[in-house]
């Protein structure tokens, strides 16, 4: 490729063009669509993965299933999944993207919910049972609340991964921010490609920051691990452990 030194300038021009910020194809509308698709995908994944992970973790079984699931998912190209969905009756557009992204998001939610519940202190669990709580009550009032930080982390990872995956929609006629990149590449307008890539990255980082902050706010104060101290503590534990 030659003569793309101007890509940065072109990208700035594209981003500064008010026409690109208005209308049904404008950046705000595309961002909104991107986020809607992502939320749908995460909800779909959570609907399947959360109950399954919580149940398996509570029962203390299925660990190998969770591990296998998490490992295979890394090898399965989301791109392939997307194309496979798009060439079935699911069709082109946003639907195959949401489905593929949801499948992509299941493993992190599942593994974190599972580990979160597995790691609840045995003594605490027994104390709850000793106080006369039924298994279900202990799960709802004791185990799940204690596992919340990890469950939240899983949802967060999933959300960011999904937002990063949704741009693939551009390849199967879907919406969101992806089409900017794809059409820019197809027409060799590298300024647009750069601008699209930049927008996707900003969105990803913004959502990551927002969710990290939100999770911190929602965590009850006693359960918050002060960042610095926590890190130092784990390092110290690593230094003295085993």
């Amino acid at each position, binding site marked *: 490729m030659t003569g793309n030194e101007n890509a940065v300038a072109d990208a700035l021009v594209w981003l500064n063009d008010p026409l690109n910020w208005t209308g049904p194809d404008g950046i705000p509308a595309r961002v909104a669509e991107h986020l809607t698709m992502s939320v749908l995908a995460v909800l779909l994944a959570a609907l399947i993965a959360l109950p399954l992970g919580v149940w398996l973790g509570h029962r203390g079984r299925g660990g190998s299933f969770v591990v296998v699931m998490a490992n295979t998912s890394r*090898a399965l190209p989301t791109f392939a999944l997307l194309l496979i969905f798009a060439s079935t009756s699911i069709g082109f557009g946003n639907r195959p993207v949401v489905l593929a992204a949801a499948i992509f998001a299941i493993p992190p939610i599942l593994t974190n919910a599972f580990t979160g519940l597995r790691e609840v202190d045995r003594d605490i669990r027994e104390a709850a049972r000793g106080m006369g709580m039924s298994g279900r009550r202990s799960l709802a009032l004791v185990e799940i609340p204690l596992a919340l930080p990890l469950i939240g982390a899983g949802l967060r990872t999933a959300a960011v991964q999904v937002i990063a995956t949704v741009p693939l929609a551009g390849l199967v006629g879907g919406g969101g921010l992806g089409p900017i990149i794809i059409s820019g590449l197809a027409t060799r307008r590298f300024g647009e490609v750069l601008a699209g890539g930049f927008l996707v990255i900003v969105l990803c980082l913004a959502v990551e920051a927002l969710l990290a902050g939100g999770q911190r706010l929602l965590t009850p104060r006693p359960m918050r691990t002060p960042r610095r101290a926590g890190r130092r503590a784990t390092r110290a534990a690593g230094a003295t452990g085993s």
Partner: protein
Amino acid sequence: MTTSAPANPWLSWDYVQTNWADISEALVQHVTLTVEAVLIAFVIALPLAALAFGRPRLAGPVLGLAGILYTIPSLAMFAILSPFTGIGRTTVLIGLVAYAMLVLVRNILVGLEGIDPEIRDAARGLGYGRIRLLLTVELPNALPSIVVGLRLATVTTVALVTIGVIVGYGGLGQLMFRGFNSNYRAEIMTATILCLAIAFVADLLLAAAGRLATPWARTRTQS
């Protein structure tokens, strides 16, 4: 799955036989790209992790930066690179190296940090210098964690190569996309299965290599 439409099956041995030249070319491309990316990433990641380990002040920023870079979608990464490195192999390789590197730095660092300090003290007591300590004691001890990192990086890279198709160089992703555009399911499916097969074989090979390289870990788990 689609018995009603024999004209467009998901799996077709015929397709594989008649297009073997094409398929094997994509396969070779996919494998070389993966191997190259992971090797380059490893060569960069090892000193970086060792440096971060030697200077704990650096570990935080290095891991933080790696985490931030990791949230960047691969598609956006290729998009950002393409105006500068063009359409093709270089762009894909740079993107792949970046992702593999992030995984590797993290795992190598975790491995180094997990070493029993008594081992380190013992080596120091024997008069080992900083470099010798790292090369002959710390790295071998961190090997299990490094192998885990390598496996993780390799498997993710195999899947990521397919995204390279957006800048015109995606190995098996190329076949998937061509099959999609011409609505030929067997091509998509064959490429997908081969992709999974590469990841599976690579993972097995690395696991076996890791077992061979760390005989002490085996005896430890046995006893």
